[in-house]
């Protein structure tokens, strides 16, 4: 099997400061990778470079495109990258309002992504939107409400529906459960895991919540000051961390 994503020597600097430095890894179809580290460790910078939201200063991000096989998304043209962002990629923001159009109805938010890839038939779009709202457990009678009338957890689920409706192959998630109640988090985790399994998605999840990565991620990458200090199987890194910083991170978790 060929990797879906091959990252090689990716670096991003903010002037003298390191955003992330020399990051390399492969991600295969169906794999979920977690990236953990404290705030400022470079995990969000890395995610944004991978997803084409920030231009890296060095390195390659090779993605296995449907039409032309492996392409470097760093050097491809902006329209091509945007096309990927609308089709094969999805990005779930920590704050749902960054990923939603707050003045457009819930159905419109989901339908917009479909229209961006060429859907034009109103009835089809609406029925697909209803189907997806159902999958993320939003009642059909809320389809014409705007996201600002939704709770935080509902907004997050709507964002996920909007992102997944076009059947992406790679999902980037930035703290998808951040700022939500634990009960809402559990529901979201359950949903995400089900979708990953059903759709065979690959995902890269940035979080500082070790319990979330234990349940969602197959593999884990630990970052500190812009560098990757440890990688491995999620349970191995959490149960037998090798690097001083990973040990500190794991031992600092409060027991419930």
């Amino acid at each position, binding site marked *: 099997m060929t990797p879906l994503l091959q990252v090689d020597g990716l670096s991003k600097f903010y002037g003298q400061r390191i955003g992330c430095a020399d990051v390399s890894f492969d991600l295969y179809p169906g*794999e979920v990778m977690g990236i953990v580290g404290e705030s400022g460790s470079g995990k969000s910078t890395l995610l944004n470079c991978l997803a084409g939201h920030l231009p890296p200063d060095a390195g390659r991000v090779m993605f296995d495109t449907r039409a032309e096989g492996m392409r470097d998304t760093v050097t491809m043209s902006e329209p091509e990258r945007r096309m990927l962002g609308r089709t094969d990629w999805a990005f779930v923001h920590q704050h749902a309002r960054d990923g939603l159009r707050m003045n457009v109805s819930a159905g419109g938010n989901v339908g917009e992504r479909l229209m961006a890839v060429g859907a034009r038939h109103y009835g089809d779009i609406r029925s697909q939107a209803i189907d997806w709202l159902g999958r993320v457990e939003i009642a059909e009678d809320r389809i014409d409400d705007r996201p600002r009338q939704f709770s935080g957890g509902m907004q997050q689920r709507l964002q996920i529906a909007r992102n997944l409706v076009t059947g992406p192959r790679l999902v980037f998630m930035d703290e998808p459960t951040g700022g939500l109640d634990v009960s809402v988090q559990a529901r979201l985790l359950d949903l995400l895991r089900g979708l990953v399994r059903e759709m065979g998605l690959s995902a890269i999840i940035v979080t500082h919540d070790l319990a979330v990565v234990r*349940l969602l991620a*197959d593999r884990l990458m630990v970052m500190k000051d812009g560098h990757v200090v440890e990688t491995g199987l999620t349970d191995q890194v959490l149960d037998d961390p*090798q690097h001083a910083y990973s040990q500190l991170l794991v031992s600092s978790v409060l027991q419930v």
Partner: protein
Amino acid sequence: MIEVSGVAKSFVLHNQGSAVIPVMHGADLSVAPGECVALVGASGAGKSTLMRMIYGNYTAQAGRIAVGDVDVASAPPRDILRLRRETLGYVSQFLRVVPRVPTLQVVAEPLRAVGADAARAEARARDLLAMLNIPERLWSLSPTTFSGGEQQRVNIARGFAHDYPALLLDEPTASLDATNRAVVLDLIEAAKARGAAIVGIFHDEAARAQVCDREVDVSRFTPERAA
């Protein structure tokens, strides 16, 4: 099926003065298909550590841990994930699940993961849960709220859902009543009969005597504690 040779392990505690704690060296173990080997030794001798190394949960500093055709000690995460999905099962002492997922799905999941359709996976899960005396009214609930013994039985059901060629069992009969203990021992016998290679930790001596073909004392692999 499981071949461990020359395995060594020490923990380095970077945040506690970089203390190095050697826990195992020269560990050797060989388990054939259809055989059940018990790990024995005093508490702290390294039974669970060795078992976790075979599962790839703990890293090994030296040696080889072959399970089928994969060397767990050196294989990349992807190969270990595949091994765990298809070949190597592990019944730990603790059940770790996504909240809200119904018990039936929790038990059926290992079969779904190897490509079984939902109906077949759920039928197998029903059989196992019924066999282990989990009341049917609990099947649609998440096991997170179950009692310790019920969680342990759900964990066992999950571990036996797929017919793994190799199985690791950490105290499978702990906290079970006599009826359920007998069911678990039957499951182990059945797994042996179909050719599974099994490594187990049993504090329950009668259970050990009943299902295990031989014992390996892990204190042989415990490094001398240097003063």
